[in-house]
């Protein structure tokens, strides 16, 4: 099942585009440049992929400091591992998978330590141009139960496939799809139309 979100469809396309959507060709050039040590090329990759990695980490762990660490460490790990990166593949999903794995590990580690989330929605802010919509959506996603929130974020923010999500989360693909469905249904109920 491809859980293309019927529940999200009515929310509409975001008015704020991603900061720097890269073509595959531009991304490959940026990776080559970064391999040569070119900071400008690294900047291209950073602008294109770090924001999504940070937002995903934040939505998964719901803690700004932890999210910053996870996104930062994930990006740095990717930079350090560039030599081993298969340049035939896109950089973005590779980075996102790194961050996703780290974020999920963090959540599990917190659960093992019985950490309690704070009032994380106090500081929720919206996107610059569609703040009310983004506020509601952000709050609704952040309020989803963890197992649903993780798969919704991995699917619809990091754009992992259900098979990839199943591998990252460590559950069967059918479980991923059912969690996705429940999460999207909840969003459809909670986010004002």
């Amino acid at each position, binding site marked *: 099942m491809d859980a*293309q979100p019927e529940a999200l469809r009515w929310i509409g*396309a975001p008015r704020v585009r991603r900061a720097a959507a890269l073509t595959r060709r531009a991304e490959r050039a940026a990776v080559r440049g970064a*391999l040569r040590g070119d900071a400008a090329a690294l900047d291209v990759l950073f602008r294109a992929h770090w924001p999504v990695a940070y937002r995903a980490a934040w939505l998964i762990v719901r803690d700004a400091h932890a*999210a910053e660490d996870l996104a930062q460490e994930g990006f740095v790990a990717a930079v350090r591992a560039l030599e081993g990166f298969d340049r035939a593949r896109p950089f973005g999903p590779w980075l996102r998978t790194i961050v996703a794995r780290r974020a999920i590990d963090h959540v599990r580690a917190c659960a093992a330590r019985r950490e309690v989330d704070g009032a994380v929605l106090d500081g929720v802010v919206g996107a610059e141009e569609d703040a009310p919509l983004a506020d509601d959506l952000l709050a609704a996603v952040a309020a989803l139960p963890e197992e649903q929130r993780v798969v919704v974020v991995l699917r619809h923010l990091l*754009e992992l496939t259900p098979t990839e999500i199943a591998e990252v989360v460590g559950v069967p693909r059918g479980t991923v799809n059912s969690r996705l469905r429940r999460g999207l249904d909840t969003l459809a109920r909670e986010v004002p139309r």
Partner: protein
Amino acid sequence: MSGRPSPLAALRVPGEEDARRRAWAVAQAALAQREPVAKRRARPPLALAAVAVAAIVVLALAVTAPGRATADWVRARIDAVAHPPAPPRAPANPVPSTGPLPGGGLILVVNDHGPTVLGLGAPRVLLGRVDAATWSPHGKYVAAVRGIELIAVDLAGHRRWSLAGHDPIRWPTWAPSGFRVAYVTGTPGRGGRTVRVVAGDGTGDHVLAATGPAPPAWQPATAGERLAYADNAGRVALRDADSGRLIWRTRGGLRPIQLAFSSDGRRLLVLEPDRTLIFNGATGALLAGGRHTTKSTNIAVAYKPGSSTVYALVRRLRGSGDARLVIVHTDRHGVRPVDFSTVLFAGGPLGAPAWSPTGDWLVAEGGAAGWDVLHVAGRGTDRIRLLAPGRGAHLAGWCCG
């Protein structure tokens, strides 16, 4: 997935901008630590262009104020300015070379490469990119801030200690004794800013007080460690940095942008955007409240070393981007200004000034083309040198003759 971006991709989550800035600095550092897989080709056209631009800059400085008056003294170091900016990943590449400083000692700048020491013969980059830095009193160490991290590093670039907080750190300031470092952390909307103090060896980090939007200042030449800061009510207070004991506090309503003690600690200058106020450093009594100015905005101030009657003041002219560097002489009590000497007009912004350790040279943070280092003679200047601080540079201090 469809080709249409998800609505989730447009969300902004808390702390993103600050986190992005810190993450980029760390990512650059990570890139710098990698061995490049292929060397870059030389780019002669760019190098030639840089030389040409530098020559134009030098020519412009020679024929315009202040260079016109002292053109013979302008010794723009073409090779220094003309060096193409070194990429952040390669600190070994040339940061503009400066050679010995005209006033002796060492100047600390924070440029795109990191905290950089000028005056050692060749610029020395101590760390990767940082947000701010400050000298230890004897110039043996530098305290630098990178996001939420405060790092003490020696002049060989070795980390001596570091600490990390939960919020971005600003305005590190090393006490004149060398035994304490103060810094400000926190944000106004989230628990407020606090000034914190840590021992010079990185231990004993503690909160001293809530503070407002101005850097704290250590009182020199006093027993104990005393720190002045401005609070959110517009009051300036002096506290013992270890016990937290309040020594004095002014009345509220001030709008300080900078606090500066004279080197004997007897005078505290509180700089507001449109006036300067002089307080008694021992009692907190207001001694002189400067007139409000309407034609210019105060930017930064620095007392001359060894003096409580002379200070340098940077002002920006309202209605234009021009700035001027003024040397102010006060009466013998260090209270009332008696003479204002403009020693530098700039056709662009000027930042913080700093005096050489001997007090006879003065540098003001200027544009990317170079900073003027002025030889101060009496109430004017008689020589100007050009300092190449590196791209994106901010002046962090001039230390230790």
